[in-house]
C-alpha cells in the first residue's frame, strides 16, 4: 500500500509540475499576470508531494518490503537500519527521486528568499524549474520507477546494497552531490527568466550569484566526500582517478566556479552579460551531460549505475530540449551586443576573463577527453584507446598553474584598471619565503628533497601570500577589517582552500611510497624509518558480514602505532571487500590493506605511505566553507 501511495504522489507531482511549467502561457493567453499569486503555494505542494513520496520509498526499505523490486535488489533483512535508510538512494531509481526532491527544494529556497519578488521574472524562473522537475519525474516514472512491484511472487529475502556503499561517507555523499548537481538548474532557470523578461542586468546577476555559489558548495562537499570515500573504501589508496563518473562531477564544478566569478563582474560592472548567460546554460548542460554519461552506460566506470540505453536516450532528449531551447532563446534575444565598458589588461575584469577562459577550456577539454575513447572507436572502426590519469594530469597542469597565479594577485586588482602595483614585489618575496620554509619542512619530514612537488609548493606559497597579504597588510583599521569580513572573507577562505588542495596533491603524488609484502603472523618488515609488524589474525562477526582482521603494528622512532585491516565477506551476496587500516596524522597517512591469504597464516599486504593526503580534503572543506560564507552573505542581504 505504502509504495502505491508513493507512486501516486509522484504522479501527482508530475501533474502539478506540468501545470506549473506552463503557467506563463496561461498568463499569455489570458493577458493577465495571475500566475504570480500561485507559484509559492504550488511549489510548497510539489515539494511536499515529492518529499512524502521519497519517505514512502524509505519506509519500504525500513520494513523490508521485498515485493518492491527496487527494495529487493538493494536491501536485505540483515542490513543495518541505518544503511537501509541510505539504500533508498544507493542505486539509480531511488537516487532519481532524491534528485527530484533536491530540485524542488532549490525552487522552494529561491521562492522564499529575499531575492524573489512577486513579478514576471519569478514566475518564469518557477516555470522553467517546474519543467526541469517535470522532465525528471517523467524520466523516473517511465524508465526507472522505484515503486514497481514484483507480484504475486515476491522474494522473501532481498539482494543487498553494494557492500562498498555500506559506509558512512557514502550515505551522505549522494545527497550532497545531487544538491550540487540539481542546484545548477536554478541559475539556468534564472538566466532563461532574464532573457525572456529582457532583464539581463546586474539585478539578475546578483540574484543568480548566491545560488551558483551554493551549488558550488554542495558540489565541492559531494566531490570531496566521494574522493575521501574512494580513498579509504576501495582499498588501494587512490583519492582521484579521473574516472568518467568523477569527471562528470568535476566538470560542472569547474563551470560553476567560472559562473559565479563571471556573475560578480556582470553585477558590479555590467560586463560579460552574454558570457554569464552562456555559462548559466553551460553549467546546467554539464550537469545533465554528467547524468547522461553516468546513467546511460555508454562509458564503463567503477561506480556507474545499472545500465540501460533506453534511459540514456531519455536523458538525451531532456538534455536536448533544455539546452537547445535555452540556446535558441539566447540567440533570438541577444543578437544586438552593446559595446561593453572598457577595461585594461591590468583590471579585475580581465582577471576574471582569464580565470573564466582557463576554467571553461579546461572543463571542455576534460569532457572531451572523457568521451574521446567513444569518438575514437566510432571514427577508427573499432580501434580502442584509453584516456586516463596520465593524460588528465598532463592536461590540468598548465591550467592549474595559470589559475593559481591569478588567485595570488586577484584580490589586489581594481575595477577598470589597477594603478598601484606595489603589492607585487611583496607577494613575490613572501611567496619565496613560504616556499623555502615548506621545502625545509618537507626535507625534515621525509628526509629527502623532491623537485616534483616544487610547482605545487610554489602555487601554494603564491596563493597563500597573495591572500594573506590582503588580510594582514592591506587592512589595518577597524573599519577596514569590518569591510574585509564583509567582502573578502569567503573569497580568502576559498582561495586558501585551493592552495591547501594544491599542496596536498603535489606532495602526495611525489612523496608517496608503496610496497606489496608477503608476511606470516609474527613477521616484521624493516624499512628505513619504520618497522612494520604483522601481529595476529583474528576473526570478526559483523551484522551482515564475516571478516578476517589483520592486526598490525608500526614502530616509528619509538612511537608505536596499532592498526588493523579487514577482509570482509558479505554473506548475502558473497562479495569480498577490503577495509584498509589507516593511521592518519597531519603530515602523513599509513595505509595498509590486507590482500589474499596465501597459505595458513601467510597473507599478502599492501603498505602505503601517503604524505599530506589529508590536506586535499581539508582544502576542499575550506573551499566549501568559503563559498558558503559568500552565498549566505548575499542571501541575507537580498537585492
Amino acid at each position, binding site marked *: 500500500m505504502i509504495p502505491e501511495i508513493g507512486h501516486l504522489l509522484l504522479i501527482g507531482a508530475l501533474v502539478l509540475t506540468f501545470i506549473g511549467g506552463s503557467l506563463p502561457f496561461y498568463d499569455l493567453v489570458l493577458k493577465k499576470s495571475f500566475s504570480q499569486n500561485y507559484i509559492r503555494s504550488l511549489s510548497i505542494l510539489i515539494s511536499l508531494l515529492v518529499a512524502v513520496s521519497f519517505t514512502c520509498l524509505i519506509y519500504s526499505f525500513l520494513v523490508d518490503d521485498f515485493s518492491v523490486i527496487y527494495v529487493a535488489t538493494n536491501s536485505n533483512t540483515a542490513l543495518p537500519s541505518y544503511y537501509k535508510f541510505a539504500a533508498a538512494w544507493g542505486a539509480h531509481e531511488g537516487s532519481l527521486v532524491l534528485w527530484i526532491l533536491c530540485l524542488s527544494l532549490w525552487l522552494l529556497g529561491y521562492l522564499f528568499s529575499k531575492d524573489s519578488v512577486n513579478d514576471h521574472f519569478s514566475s518564469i524562473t518557477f516555470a522553467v524549474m517546474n519543467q526541469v522537475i517535470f522532465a525528471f519525474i517523467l524520466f523516473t516514472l517511465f524508465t526507472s520507477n522505484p515503486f514497481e512491484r514484483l507480484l504475486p511472487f515476491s522474494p522473501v529475502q532481498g539482494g543487498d546494497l553494494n557492500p562498498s556503499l555500506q559506509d558512512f561517507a557514502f550515505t551522505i555523499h549522494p545527497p550532497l552531490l545531487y544538491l550540487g548537481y540539481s542546484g545548477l538548474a536554478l541559475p539556468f532557470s534564472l538566466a532563461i527568466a532574464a532573457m525572456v523578461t529582457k532583464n539581463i542586468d546586474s539585478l539578475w546577476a546578483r540574484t543568480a550569484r548566491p545560488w551558483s555559489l551554493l551549488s558550488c558548495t554542495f558540489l565541492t562537499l559531494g566531490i570531496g566526500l566521494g574522493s575521501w570515500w574512494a580513498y579509504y573504501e576501495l582499498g588501494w589508496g587512490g583519492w582521484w582517478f579521473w574516472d568518467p563518473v568523477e569527471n562528470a562531477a568535476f566538470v560542472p564544478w569547474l563551470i560553476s566556479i567560472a559562473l559565479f566569478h563571471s556573475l560578480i563582474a556582470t553585477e558590479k560592472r555590467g560586463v560579460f552579460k552574454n558570457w554569464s548567460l552562456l555559462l548559466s546554460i553551460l553549467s546546467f548542460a554539464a550537469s545533465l551531460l554528467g547524468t547522461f554519461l553516468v546513467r546511460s552506460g555508454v562509458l564503463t566506470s567503477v561506480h556507474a549505475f545499472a545500465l540501460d540505453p533506453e534511459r540514456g536516450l531519455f536523458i538525451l532528449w531532456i538534455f*536536448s530540449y533544455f539546452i537547445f531551447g535555452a540556446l535558441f532563446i539566447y540567440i533570438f534575444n541577444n543578437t544586438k551586443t552593446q559595446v561593453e565598458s572598457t577595461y585594461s589588461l591590468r583590471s579585475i575584469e580581465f582577471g576574471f576573463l582569464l580565470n573564466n577562459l582557463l576554467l571553461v577550456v579546461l572543463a571542455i577539454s576534460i569532457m572531451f577527453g572523457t568521451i574521446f575513447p567513444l569518438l575514437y572507436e*566510432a571514427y577508427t572502426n*573499432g580501434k580502442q584507446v584509453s584516456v586516463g590519469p596520465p593524460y588528465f594530469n598532463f592536461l590540468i597542469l598548465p591550467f592549474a598553474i595559470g589559475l593559481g597565479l591569478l588567485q595570488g594577485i586577484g584580490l589586489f586588482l581594481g575595477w577598470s584598471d589597477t594603478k598601484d602595483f606595489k603589492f607585487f614585489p611583496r607577494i613575490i618575496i613572501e611567496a619565496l619565503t613560504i616556499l623555502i620554509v615548506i621545502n625545509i619542512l618537507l626535507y625534515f619530514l621525509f628526509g629527502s628533497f623532491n623537485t616534483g612537488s616544487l610547482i605545487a609548493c610554489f602555487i601554494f606559497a603564491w596563493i597563500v601570500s597573495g591572500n594573506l597579504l590582503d588580510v594582514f597588510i592591506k587592512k589595518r583599521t577597524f573599519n577596514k577589517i569590518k569591510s574585509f569580513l564583509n567582502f573578502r572573507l569567503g573569497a580568502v577562505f576559498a582561495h586558501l582552500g585551493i592552495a591547501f588542495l594544491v599542496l596536498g596533491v603535489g606532495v602526495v603524488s611525489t612523496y608517496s611510497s608503496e610496497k606489496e609484502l608477503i608476511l606470516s603472523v609474527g613477521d616484521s618488515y624493516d624499512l628505513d624509518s619504520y618497522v612494520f609488524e604483522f601481529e595476529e589474525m583474528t576473526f570478526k562477526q559483523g551484522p551482515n558480514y564475516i571478516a578476517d582482521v589483520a592486526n598490525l603494528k608500526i614502530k616509528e622512532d619509538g612511537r608505536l602505532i596499532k592498526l588493523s585491516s579487514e577482509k570482509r565477506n558479505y554473506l548475502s551476496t558473497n562479495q569480498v571487500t577490503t577495509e584498509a587500516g589507516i593511521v592518519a596524522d597531519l603530515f602523513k597517512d599509513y595505509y595498509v590493506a590486507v590482500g589474499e591469504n596465501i597459505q595458513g597464516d601467510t597473507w599478502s599486504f599492501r603498505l602505503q605511505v601517503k604524505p599530506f593526503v589529508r590536506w586535499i580534503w581539508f582544502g576542499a572543506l575550506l573551499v566549501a566553507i568559503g563559498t558558503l560564507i559568500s552565498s549566505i552573505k548575499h542571501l541575507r542581504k537580498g537585492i
Partner: protein
Amino acid sequence: MRKLIHIAPLLMFVVLVLALFSFLQRDVDQLNSVLIDKNFPQFSLTKLENEDVVLTKNDISDFPAIVNVWATWCITCRVEHPFLLKLKEKSEVQIYGLNYKDDRQKALSLLAREGNPFKFSIYDKDGLLAIDLGVYGAPETFLINADGIIKARHVGALTPDIWDQKFLIHLQ
C-alpha cells in the same frame, strides 16, 4: 563574425548531441583483439593430455581452426561446452583447447566426464601463451582461417548466434 560567435554555442551543442546519440548505438564493451590478421604467436608448452609432449606453434596445423581458452574454474566455460561438442560433430573446423591456469588432473577429469571437444589442449599453467594472445578472461575463442591467420576473437561463451555472426563469415 559577431553573429558567428553568437550562434557558435548552438552549433557546438548540435555536434555534441549528434555524437552522443551515435554513442547509444554502440555495442556492449568488448575489447577488440589486436592479433586479428596476424599469425598465431610462437609458444612452447606441454600437452594437457601428456606432460612429456612439448607443443609448439607448428602443432596447430590443421586449418581452419578455433582455439578455445578454457579452465575448470571458469563457470561460463561449462555453458559453451555442449556447443563445442556439437561443433566438433558437425563442422570441419578443428578445435584446439588452451587450458588456462588450471590443474592438470582436474582438467583431464572434467574432459573425461563431460566429453572432449578438443583435438588436444595446450597446458598453459602460468598463462604465458594467454598473455601473448591478449587473453583477459576465460572463456575466449580465436578463429584461425584456412591460411593460418587469426580472423576473429570472441570473449565469453560461444553460442550458435555468435558463431554465425562473428565466425562463419570468415570461413567462406
